[in-house]
C-alpha cells in the first residue's frame, strides 16, 4: 500500500498542469479577490446600513410588529429613517439609502442595485417573514406553544446579540473568500476523475495495465482516495494559510474547525470525483464535463455566485441544502466563523463524511468486477 501511495503521490505532484489548477490557480484567484476588494476594509466591522422606512397608510398589527422589528435592529445593523415614499426613493437613487422597507399590511423591500448590503437587507426581511409565518402557524395550530416559540425567537436574538458583543462580526468580503476556499476544495473533483480514468481499461492504456494486475480494486480505490485527499487537503490548507496570513483575512480564528472543514471538503470532492470517474460508459471529456457541473451547479445553489440562493432554497426545498456538498461546506464555514454554532458544524461534517463513504462504496461496487463493452 505504501509503495502504491508513494508512486501515486509522485505521479500527481510531478504533473505541472494538475498542480497548477489544484494549487496555484485558486491562490491566483484569491490574489485577484484581494486586489479587487482592496485591503482597506478587510477584517473591519461591517458598516451600519442606512435604510429608509416608508409607513403605508392605515394601522395594522403587521405594520406595528414590523416597525418594532426594524426599531430593534436600528443602530446595530441598520440605521433607519422614516420618510415619505417620494423622499425615500430620492434617497435611494442618490445612494443615501441602501434600501427602502415598506411597513404595511405586507412588509416589503425596494433596492436599487444588487450587492452585499442589499442581500443583508433582503435576509433581514426574509428572516422577519419566516418568523412571522411561524408565529402565525403556532397561533393557529398550537396556541398553547406560543410562549415556547417566542422564547425560541428570543434565544436566537440573544445569540446574535452575543456574537456581536463578542466581536465575531462578519466582513462582507469574507464570504467571497469562503466561497473561494469551498471552490478550491470542490475542484479536487477533477483529480478524482482523472485518477479514476487512469484506472479504467476503456479510457487509457495505463488503465488497461492496472486492470489486469492482481491488486484488489478496493485497495486501488482506497489508495487513490487517501493520496488525492492528502494532496487536495494540502492545497486547500495552503490557500487558507495565504488568505489568513498573507491577505490578513480573519477567517474566524478557529484553526481546528478550519482544518476539519477543509479535510472534509477535500474528502467529499475527491470521492465525488472518483464516483463520476467510475462510470465507465462515459468518455473522459464527458466525465470532466460532469465534474464542472458538479463543481459549479452545487456552488450556484449554495450561493457561491448569487448570495441569496441558499436562503431561497432553505425556504422552498431545504433538503437540497442538506445534501448539496457546496451548501453543507459553506454552511460549515459560516457556522464556524460567523454563527459559532459547533453543533450545526459537526452535523454538517458528519453529513459530508457520510456522503463521502457512500460515494466510495458506490464507486467500489461499480468498478470491482467491471468488464468493458469495448476497449
Amino acid at each position, binding site marked *: 500500500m505504501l*509503495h*502504491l501511495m508513494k*508512486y501515486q503521490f*509522485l*505521479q500527481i505532484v*510531478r*504533473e505541472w498542469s494538475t498542480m497548477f489548477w489544484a494549487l496555484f490557480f485558486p491562490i491566483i484567484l484569491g490574489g485577484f479577490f484581494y486586489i479587487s476588494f482592496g485591503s482597506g476594509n478587510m477584517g473591519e466591522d461591517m458598516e451600519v446600513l442606512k435604510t429608509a422606512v416608508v409607513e403605508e397608510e392605515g394601522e395594522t398589527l403587521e405594520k406595528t410588529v414590523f416597525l418594532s422589528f426594524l426599531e430593534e435592529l436600528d443602530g446595530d445593523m441598520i440605521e433607519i429613517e422614516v420618510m415619505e415614499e417620494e423622499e425615500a426613493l430620492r434617497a435611494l437613487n442618490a445612494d443615501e439609502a441602501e434600501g427602502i422597507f415598506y411597513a404595511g399590511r405586507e412588509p416589503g423591500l425596494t433596492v436599487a442595485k444588487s450587492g452585499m448590503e442589499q442581500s443583508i437587507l433582503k435576509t433581514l426581511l426574509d428572516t422577519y417573514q419566516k418568523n412571522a409565518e411561524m408565529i402565525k402557524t403556532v397561533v393557529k395550530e398550537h396556541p398553547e406553544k406560543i410562549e415556547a416559540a417566542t422564547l425560541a425567537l428570543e434565544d436566537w436574538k440573544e445569540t446574535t446579540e452575543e456574537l456581536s458583543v463578542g466581536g465575531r462580526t462578519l466582513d462582507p468580503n469574507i464570504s467571497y473568500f469562503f466561497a473561494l476556499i469551498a471552490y478550491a476544495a470542490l475542484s479536487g473533483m477533477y483529480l478524482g476523475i482523472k485518477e479514476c480514468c487512469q484506472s479504467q*481499461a476503456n479510457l*487509457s*492504456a*495505463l488503465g*488497461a*495495465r*492496472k*486492470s*489486469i*494486475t*492482481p*491488486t*484488489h*480494486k478496493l485497495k486501488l480505490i482506497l489508495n487513490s482516495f487517501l493520496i488525492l485527499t492528502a494532496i487536495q487537503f494540502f492545497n486547500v490548507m495552503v490557500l487558507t494559510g495565504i488568505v489568513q496570513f498573507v491577505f490578513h483575512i480573519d477567517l474566524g480564528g478557529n484553526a481546528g474547525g478550519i482544518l476539519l472543514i477543509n479535510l472534509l471538503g477535500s474528502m467529499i470532492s475527491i470521492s465525488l470525483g472518483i464516483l463520476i470517474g467510475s462510470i465507465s460508459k462515459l468518455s473522459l471529456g464527458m466525465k470532466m464535463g460532469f465534474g464542472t457541473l458538479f463543481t459549479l451547479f452545487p456552488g450556484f445553489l449554495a450561493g457561491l455566485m448569487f448570495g441569496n440562493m441558499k436562503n431561497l432554497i432553505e425556504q422552498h426545498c431545504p433538503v437540497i441544502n442538506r445534501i448539496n456538498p457546496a451548501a453543507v461546506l459553506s454552511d460549515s464555514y459560516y457556522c464556524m466563523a460567523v454563527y459559532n454554532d459547533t453543533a450545526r458544524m459537526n452535523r454538517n461534517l458528519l453529513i459530508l463524511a457520510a456522503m463521502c463513504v457512500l460515494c466510495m462504496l458506490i464507486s467500489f461496487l461499480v468498478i*470491482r*468486477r*467491471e*468488464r*468493458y*463493452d*469495448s*476497449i
Partner: protein
Amino acid sequence: MVTITNLVKRYGSLVALDHLNLEIEEGEIYGLLGPNGSGKTTAINCMLAILKYDKGGIRIMGEEMRPDSYEVKKNIGVVMQNVAVFEQMSVWENVDYFCGLYVTDKKRRRELVEEAVRFVGLEDYRKMRPKKLSGGLLRRLNIACGIAHKPKLIIMDEPTVAVDPQSRNKILEGILELNRQGTTIIYTSHYMEEVEQICTKISIMDHGRVLASGTKEELKGMIKTGETITIEAVVLDEEQIAEIRELPHVFQVTYEEQVLKIRLSGAKHNLVRILHYLEEREISFGRVFSELPTLNDVFLEITGKELRD
C-alpha cells in the same frame, strides 16, 4: 495453460470473435497471426477479463478467468500493444511501480526490477523519464513493466510495432530467453517473419476465427504450395504465360510489371524445368529466386488474400 472455448464477441452487428477456440499448452510460444482487425487484440482483452464477451468460456491455469481472479492474475504478465507507462516517473520507477502491483516484498521486488531493467537493456537509462527515450527503448520499457514480476504466462500483443530492427531483435531474443526459463508466451503479431522465427505453435486468424493451427511445418504442409519461383525482368506474351501454366506442378502464375511469379506444388527440379523452358524460347531474364512456402503463402491459400493487405 489457456483454454478458450467457442468465444463470441460482437460489436453491434460486427462479429469480432466468431466461436474462437484455442488451446495453449505450458511452455509454448504460441503465435496468433493475422492481419489488423482479425481479432487478435480482442481475444487478448477477453482473456484478461477486461472486455465483455457474448458467449463462450476462458480458463487460465485451470480457473475460469474473471475480473476478480486475482490469484490467476498474479501469474500473468502482459505487454500491451500501446505503450502504457507513466510520463512523470523514471524508467526504474515505472518498472518498480508495476512490479509492486504483483510483488509486495520490497527486497525481492528490487531484485526483480534490476533484473528486468537489465533484461531489456535499459541499465543506462534507469533515471530517464519516458519522453526522453526513443521509440525502441520505450517499447523495451513497456516490456520490462509487463514481465518484471516473472509471471508463468506472458501475453505480448504486437510488442514490436514501430520498433527499429536492432530493438526488434533484442526483443525477440528476450522472448526466446524467457521461454527457455520456462515461461509460456502468447505472442500476437501481423509480422509473419517474427512469428515464424520464435513461435512453437501458431494459429492463423482472420475475421475473428482461427483458420488454421499447428507448428509452422504443419501449417505449411496444409497448403498446396511447395515452392514459389520468382523471375524478374522477363518479357513474356500471353501465349508464353499460358504455356508456363501448363508446365508440370505449376498451379498459379502471375505476371506483373515484368515480374513472373510461379507457384508450384512440392516436387524436385521445378526450377530447372522453368529455366529450361525460358532457354528453349530464348527468353532473356534477370534475377531468379526460389522460396519455400511462408506463412504468408498459408494465409494466401486459405483466405485468398495477402497477410499484409
